[in-house]
């Protein structure tokens, strides 16, 4: 169990060496009728962002303008290159794809999704 706990910690790390991708910083908030997802995507151009709403959540993939290289990186102590951001962000509730909006400014991607409205049942008070 201790080992599993350690791997949970590592799983939160934000690099995928195999995919050569980075996980962006993400912030999720809610209003009464919307879910708002913000991601920090530095070194990315708007045209290189692919955004999809899938069963697991909001999927974002974005190529970096240039390959980023870290020398003597981390526990592997070798040169590592990263070429894109990739993340599937689970959402706090059901949303509908219709009416979704997205904007990208100064490297910050903001996506607004409408919450799926549940069927209402009115209760009378006697």
């Amino acid at each position: 169990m201790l080992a599993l706990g350690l791997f949970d910690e590592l799983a939160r790390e934000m690099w995928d060496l195999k995919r050569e991708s980075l996980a962006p910083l993400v912030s999720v908030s809610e209003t009464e009728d919307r879910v708002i997802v913000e991601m920090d995507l530095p070194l990315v151009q708007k045209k290189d962002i692919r955004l999809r709403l899938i069963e697991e959540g909001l999927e974002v993939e974005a190529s970096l303008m240039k390959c980023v290289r870290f020398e003597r990186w981390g526990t592997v102590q070798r040169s590592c290159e990263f070429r894109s951001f990739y993340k599937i962000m689970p959402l706090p509730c059901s949303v509908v794809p219709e009416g979704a909006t997205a904007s990208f400014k100064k490297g910050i991607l903001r996506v607004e999704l409408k919450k799926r409205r549940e069927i209402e049942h009115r209760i009378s008070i006697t």
Partner: protein
Amino acid sequence: MSSSRVTVVETSPIDKCRYCLVGFPDVGLVSSIALGHAILQAQMTEVGHLESDEFPPVIVVHDGVPKPPLRLYHKNDVVFVVSEMPIDSNLITPIVRSLVDWAESKNVELLITTSGIAVPNRLEIEVPEVYGVASSAAGRKVMEDAGIKALEEGFIAGLHAALMKESLKKKVPSLILLAQSHLKYPDPGAAASLINALNRLVGFDVDTKELLVHEGEVRLRLRALMQRTQENMQQVKKGQEQEIPLLYS
């Protein structure tokens, strides 16, 4: 002599310290980015570190040399105190007590803590403003002479707030500088504004061009530190900084 659980260790003696600048990971990593950039640009010398049995068992390795994560750097009459890891809330009080005692022993003219202050419209701000809070009227004058506006109303939460509290108690002149910034994303633009304010305040001459040119790389490199820092910001109830105080004038 302090009975603090944290000790300031000088590995090279610091004879003169007019200004002591403190910058730990916090909102937008503004102070970490600003002081880290200044240390490299000004080629400051590493002269000590903070030590405690209660620090986590972590060292950082640079160019093959192991170092404590909380370190002191020195040039001319300025000392920087920086950390490469976020500080747990239970360590804030012993750290600030140790730093204020040390600043008092060195007859520091001004103890300056730096950070960011989160603003919701940061994307609309081209050049972030820097605000200050001084522990005395004299400190406020120094700040205003450097063209830094006073923060008139609000809450401040975190290590810099604790440092100000301790400074007021021990009557050590101190100042908090806060640059408008993102809350949860590394903000080199805010760090550049902070550096420019420090240049005016303490007579530094640190160029911010390189920092702004490589803004994207800085944001990318510091994602993991920002993620860890967010957890610590929750511990100190950072959200309270967005509230209006009860006795709002």
